[in-house]
C-alpha cells in the first residue's frame, strides 16, 4: 500500500476495499517503525490524523468525497496547523501550537485529506541540507544502503525524504530559493514550485515574503497536479495571492508534447555541473526529443548574479520577518529576563540557530543606513534584469530545462562549515524565485546510485504545461518509481 500514489490510494478508497481509518493506521504504523532512520518528521499527529480519517470515511459515506478524501499526506512544519505544534524547525517555536490553519492547511482539510504530521525542515526554511533544524538533520533514504548518511537537501528535506521513503505518498513544501526542487532532486521525487502568487502564503511562516511559495512534493507529476488542484487559488487573506482562475491540472497531463520548444540555458550547463550529472540531464532531454520536442540553446546572461542578489534580498526580508520572535507574545522566552533588552537579546540568542542568526545579521546589514542603496536597491535592480532574461527566453521557447543541482546528495556535515558552498547548492534554482516563475524537479537518472533531478522552468502560470511535460516523461521513464533500498 505504501508504494501507491495518491491517485491509486484514492481509487482504493473509492472502491471501498479499505477505509481511510485502516489506511491511515497502516501509514502511521509504518511511519513510526521506519522514521527512526530518517528523522523526517518533527511531529506525528496520530490522534488528529485518525479523527480526520474517520471524518473522511463519513464524508465518503455521505457521497461528498473528493479525490483527496481519506488520503494520507504530510505538511512541512512551516504551515500552521490548528491545534498541532508548528515549529518551523526552530527552538523558537518548539512550544508553538497555532490556533489557526494556514490557507493551504484549511484547503487540504476541506478536501478531506488526512494529515499524518509535520515534516522536518531547515530552521525557518534557511538551508539546503536540512542540517539547520532544531530537531536534528534528516537523512536521505538514498545512500543509506551503503552506510552513507547523506543530506536530503533543504529546506523541505523532511517532506522529500518522507515521500522518497514511502512514509507518505505526498507532502507539502515551500520554495524560497530552491527548497522544494533541490530536495526533490536529491531524494528522487517530483516537486513543483508554482508561480509566485499562485498559492496563498497565509499561515505559511515567512522567510522571505517576496520569494516564498508553497508547492507540492510527490512521487509522480500526476500526484503533484492533484496537490496543486487543492493548493492553488486566490485567498483574500494574502494580498500577494493572485486572483486568477485555477485550471484542473490533471486535465492536460496527457496532451502530446509534439512541437514543444525546449530551451537549454547555456549558463546552467557550465563547469559548475559535474560531467556525470550533465550526462544524465542530457539523456533526459533526449527523451523529450523522442517525444516530439525540439531543443535549442538560449541565454540567461544575468543568471550568474542570482545568488548574490538573492543573498541580499532574502536575508533583508527575513531580518524583518523574524523580528516578531521577541519572546513577548508566543514561542520561546529566555529564563528570568532582567529587563526588556535582556529579554530580547537572550531570547533571540538562545532561540535561533546559527544559520538564522547569520541571515538576520546579513539582512540587517544590507538594510542599514549607508548600505541600503549599494546592497538592497542594487539587488532589486539585478532582480529585474534576471526577470527580463526569462521573459526574453520565453519569447523563443516554451520550457527551459536544466539540472536542479550541480551534484547529487552530499554527506551530512560536508558543507556545514562553509556557508558559501552550501549557498551554491541553489545556483540553478534561485533565479527562478527572483523572477517569480514556476519550475519543477523531475527524477531523471542516477549518478553513483544517487538520484539526479531535471529542472523544468516555465513562464508565469504555466504550471499545467510543466506538469504535462513531466507526466509525459514519466510515462516513458521509471526514475520516479525507483525505491531506495
Amino acid at each position, binding site marked *: 500500500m505504501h508504494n501507491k500514489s495518491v491517485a491509486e490510494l484514492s481509487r482504493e478508497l473509492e472502491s471501498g476495499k479499505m477505509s481511510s481509518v485502516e489506511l491511515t493506521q497502516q501509514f502511521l504504523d509504518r511511519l513510526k517503525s521506519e522514521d527512526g532512520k530518517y528523522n523526517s518528521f518533527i511531529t506525528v499527529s496520530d490522534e488528529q490524523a485518525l479523527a480526520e480519517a474517520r471524518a473522511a470515511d463519513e464524508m465518503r459515506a455521505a457521497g461528498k468525497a473528493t479525490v483527496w478524501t481519506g488520503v494520507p499526506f504530510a505538511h512541512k512544519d512551516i504551515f500552521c496547523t490548528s491545534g498541532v505544534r508548528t515549529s518551523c524547525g526552530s527552538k523558537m517555536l518548539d512550544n508553538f501550537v497555532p490556533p489557526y490553519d494556514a490557507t493551504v492547511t484549511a484547503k487540504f482539510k476541506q478536501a478531506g485529506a488526512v494529515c499524518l504530521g509535520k515534516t522536518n525542515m531547515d530552521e525557518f526554511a534557511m538551508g539546503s541540507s536540512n542540517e539547520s533544524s532544531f530537531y536534528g538533520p534528516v537523512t536521505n533514504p538514498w545512500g543509506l544502503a551503503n552506510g552513507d548518511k547523506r543530506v536530503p537537501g533543504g529546506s523541505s528535506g523532511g517532506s522529500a525524504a518522507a515521500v522518497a521513503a514511502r512514509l507518505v505518498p505526498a507532502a507539502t513544501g515551500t520554495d524560497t530559493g530552491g527548497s522544494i526542487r533541490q530536495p526533490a532532486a536529491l531524494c528522487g521525487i517530483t516537486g513543483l514550485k508554482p508561480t509566485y502568487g499562485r498559492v496563498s502564503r497565509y499561515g505559511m511562516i515567512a522567510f522571505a515574503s517576496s520569494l516564498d511559495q508553497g508547492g507540492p512534493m510527490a512521487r509522480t507529476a500526476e500526484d503533484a497536479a492533484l496537490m496543486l488542484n487543492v493548493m492553488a487559488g486566490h485567498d483574500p487573506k494574502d494580498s500577494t495571492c493572485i486572483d486568477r482562475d485555477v485550471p484542473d491540472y490533471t486535465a492536460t497531463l496527457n496532451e502530446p508534447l509534439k512541437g514543444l520548444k525546449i530551451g537549454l540555458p547555456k549558463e546552467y550547463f557550465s563547469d559548475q555541473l559535474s560531467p556525470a550529472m550533465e550526462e544524465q540531464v542530457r539523456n533526459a532531454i533526449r527523451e523529450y526529443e523522442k517525444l516530439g520536442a525540439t531543443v535549442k540553446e538560449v541565454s540567461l546572461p544575468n543568471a550568474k548574479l542570482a545568488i548574490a542578489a538573492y543573498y541580499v534580498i532574502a536575508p533583508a526580508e527575513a531580518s524583518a520577518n523574524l*523580528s516578531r520572535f521577541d519572546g513577548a507574545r508566543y514561542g520561546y522566552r529566555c529564563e528570568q529576563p532582567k529587563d*526588556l533588552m535582556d529579554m530580547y537579546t537572550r531570547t533571540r540568542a538562545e532561540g535561533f540557530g546559527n544559520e538564522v542568526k547569520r541571515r538576520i545579521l546579513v539582512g540587517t546589514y544590507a538594510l542599514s543606513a549607508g548600505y541600503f542603496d549599494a546592497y538592497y536597491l542594487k539587488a532589486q535592480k539585478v532582480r529585474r534584469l534576471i526577470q527580463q532574461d526569462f521573459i526574453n527566453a520565453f519569447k523563443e521557447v516554451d520550457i527551459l530545462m536544466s539540472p536542479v543541482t550541480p551534484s547529487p546528495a552530499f554527506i551530512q556535515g560536508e558543507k556545514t562549515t562553509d556557508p558559501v558552498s552550501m549557498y551554491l547548492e541553489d545556483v540553478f534554482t534561485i533565479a527562478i524565485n527572483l523572477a517569480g516563475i514556476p519550475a519543477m524537479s523531475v527524477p531523471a537518472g542516477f549518478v553513483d546510485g544517487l538520484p539526479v533531478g531535471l529542472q523544468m522552468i516555465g513562464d508565469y502560470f504555466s504550471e499545467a504545461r510543466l506538469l504535462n511535460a513531466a507526466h509525459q516523461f514519466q510515462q516513458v521513464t521509471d526514475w520516479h518509481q525507483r525505491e531506495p533500498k
Partner: protein
Amino acid sequence: MQWDIVIGLEIHVQLATQTKIFSGSSTAFGAEPNTQASAVDLAMPGTLPVPNEQAFRYAVMFGLATNAEIGRRSVFERKNYFYPDLPKGYQTTQLDKPIVGPGYVDIDLADGSSKRVRIHHAHLEEDAGKSLHEDYHGMTGIDLNRAGTPLIEVVTEPDMNSAEEAVAFAKKLHSLVTSLGICDGDMSQGSMRFDVNISLKPKGSDTLGTRTETKNLNSFRFMEQAIAHEVERQMDILEDGGSITQETRLYNGDRDESRSMRSKEEANDYRYFPCPDLLPVEIDDAFIEDARARLPELPDARRARFKEQYGLNDYDAGILSADAKLATFFEETVAHGKDAKLAANWIQGEFSARLNAEEKSVAESPITGAQLGDLVVRIADNTLSSSGAKKVFEALWTGENDNVDAIIEAKGLKQVSDTGALEAMVDEVLAGMPDQVAQYQGEEDPKKRKKMLGGFMGPLMKASKGQGNPKLFNEILVRKLGG
C-alpha cells in the same frame, strides 16, 4: 537679541474606520485589553496584512480637502525597531511614496489676517499598541487593541512662527478631519496627537537653527504650553551663548517640564524597505472622483454659508462652523428656534461653558439642538426671562425633564406680560416707595436716573414672584415716573 520662532508640526490622526488598517479587528476605543487583537494584530507566525480600502478613501478625502496631490502609486514600507507594543517588530508605514503629496491649509489669526501653512505630505500607517506600566508590580502590561488602528501622519513645512499660529493650524486641522468625518477628533482618547518641531533663529536670518522635536502632545492647551516652554528653554540656552542639541523631548503638561528622550546620535536606524507582503497601491481617477463626491461641506465653506444664510457675523460664523458637530448642533437649534443670533449666543455662552466645565464634547451633550431650539423660541417670544431661561436650561441639562414647555409650566417660569397686571404692581410698589420716587424725579443726570431705576426692579420682581417681564416693567416704570 530678537529671535524668530520656527515651528513645524507632525500630526497623527486616527482614522474613524470600523476596522483596522490591515486586519478585520474592530477599532472601537475602551474595550478590555487585547479583546480587539486578532492573529494578524498579534503578529502570529504566518499571518499577513490585507489593506483596508476605507483607510485609503479617507486619506484621499483628506488630500482633496487640503488641496494636495494624491499619490497615484503609494508604497508601504517597514520601519524596523523593537518595542513590546509593536508586535511585528516593524511598523508598516509609508516613506517615499505617500498617499497624500504636497498641499496646504489656510489659517485665520486673531488679528484678522490669514496665513497659508504648507503640508509637506501625509502618509498612511498603523498605530502601535499600548504599554501599561501601572498595576503590574514592576512588570509591563501590553494592550494590543490599538495596534493596527489606521493613522494618517500629516507633516507640515516649518511655516508657523508662534504658538498661536501652531495652535490655530492644529485647530483648523481638527476642524477639517472632523468635518470630513474621517476622525472622531476625540483628543482625550488619542485620536489626534501632535509632535512639534521648534527652532529659533536670529530675527531676519535666513538660516534655520537646530531644532528639537517635542512628542505626543494630546491637547491644544498642552501644545501651546509646550511651545512656550521650549521656546523659552532654547532662548535661555542661546542667549547664554550655548547651542541647541538636536533631540526628541517629552513634555509633562502637568508640571510644565520637559526632558530629553533621545538625541540624534541615539536615534534608531529604522532600516526602511518596501513591505513585500503588500503590493503598491494604485489609485485611479474613479477612486479619486468617488472620494471627491463624498466630501462634505468643509469649514471654510460652512463659515461663508452661516454668514449668508443666518446673518451671523464673521466671528460667530467662524466659531460655529469650525467643529462639524457643533455646526450641526447649531443648525438643529436654529431649525427649531428660528432666531439664529439668539441660538448662536446661547451655544457660545451657556452651552459651551457647561460642556467645558464638565469636559464633555458636543456629542456627549445631554441636551439636543432641538431642545435648545425650543428654549430659544420661548426666550424670543418673551415667555422666559433670562434667569428663567437659565433655570430651564439647567433642568434640561440635568435630565430633570426633557420638554421645555413642561419645565416652564412645572416651575412656574412663564413671565407675566399682561400689561394691566404689571401696571397695577408698579403702582403698588411706587406707592410704597415715595422717597425714592421723589429722589428719582429730582435727579437731572440721565445716567444716575437710569441707575436709580434699578432700585425699583428688585421690589417689582419680588411682587411678581419673579415672573414679571423685566423689559415691560422697565417701560412702565419710565412712563409712570415721567421720563
